[in-house]
Each structure stands twice: as structure tokens, then as C-alpha cells.
């Protein structure tokens, strides 16, 4: 029996594909499409509550907007502060 981990949790938008940002209309329209999708898919739709749910994208998902989405995983972790760093390590 798996203990459910639902509830408020923070998921960073880690975009694994490094994408070189072209400063043109195509990239911008993809960006705005992605934002519209994120607006719906991360925040709306059917939300199931209950013990059987292991995880669900919750209302206070925090993600970093398109500028940061284009950076690599490592940079992201540095900017945001990895959730797994203990207070001891932080103090260093």
C-alpha cells in the first residue's frame, strides 16, 4: 500500500530539452501556446481527492516562466534551491 503524497507540493518546471531561443515569431507563438496550455493543464480540469491518488498537480504549482524554462536542470536547481538540501548544507 503506497502512502499517498498528494497535497500542496512544489514542482519546478524543469524543461529537459535545452532550447536555443530564437528571437523570432515562431518561437514566440510557441511560447504563448505553451503558456496557454500550462494555464489550463496545471491549474484546471478534473482534480481527484482521495487516498488513492498518489500525486496531482496542485493549485500552487510554482513554475518559473519561460525565461528560466530554457535553462538547464543544474542552473534551475541553483536558482531555486534544491528542496532536498538540508539546513546544514545550506549554511555552508
Amino acid at each position, binding site marked *: 500500500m503506497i502512502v499517498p503524497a498528494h497535497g500542496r507540493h*512544489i514542482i519546478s518546471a524543469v524543461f529537459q530539452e535545452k532550447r536555443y531561443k530564437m528571437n523570432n*515569431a515562431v518561437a*514566440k*507563438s510557441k*511560447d*504563448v*501556446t505553451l*503558456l*496557454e*496550455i*500550462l*494555464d489550463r493543464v496545471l491549474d484546471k480540469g478534473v482534480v481527484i481527492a482521495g487516498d488513492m491518488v498518489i500525486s496531482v498537480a496542485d*493549485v*500552487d504549482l*510554482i*513554475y*518559473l*516562466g*519561460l525565461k*528560466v524554462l530554457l535553462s538547464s536542470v543544474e542552473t534551475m536547481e541553483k*536558482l*531555486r*534551491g534544491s*528542496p532536498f*538540501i*538540508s*539546513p546544514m548544507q*545550506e*549554511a555552508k
Partner: protein
Amino acid sequence: MIANAVVETDSDEEFIEEIEKAQNALPKKINANPKTVEKGLAKLVLTLIELIRKLLEKQAMRRVEAGSLSDEEIERVGETLMKLENKMEELKEIFGLKDEELNLNLGPLGDLL
């Protein structure tokens, strides 16, 4: 797999900017070291104080609009509100908090401020 829904606009950049702002795209740390906890409490207290301060201001404005304050009262209210505002600025600076950070998200009810 590609999604099919189409997004049409002549002003991609402006919408990107506003939608990101609306989605409150600020990085927030979630570790629990003592400094952060302290700041968290300060944020909460100051947010509530801001709420009260803004309500007081609004109430004062309504009375000014209705003309129900004497000249002397206007003077006194002005002085009080001014001092309150300055004090809040001080406190914000002490705790290193910006205006945008002083808010509480009440889920389906939206933001407090």
C-alpha cells in the same frame, strides 16, 4: 505528439509578459532553515498589517469623498496614514520584503490583497 489547439494573436510578446505575471512566476524556496522561518513569519504579520492599513486608507478616502471629515480631521488622518505608510516601508526594508511578496493566496478565493 503535438497539441492541436491554436493560439492566435498579433501581440505575442505582450501576452507572454502579462500571462507570466499573472501566473506569479517568482521562484520560491522551500527549505526550512531558521532564517527562512523567521522571514516567513514576518511576511505573514506584515501582510496582515498591510491589509488593515489598506482598509483604513480606503475607509478614509470614502469619508473624504463623502465630505464627512472636518478640516482638522483630514489633517489628523493624513498624518496618521502617512506615518503608518512610512513605518511599513521601514519594516519591509528591515525584513527585505518587497510589495509583491506581501500577499496571501487563499486558493479559490484568490489573493488577500
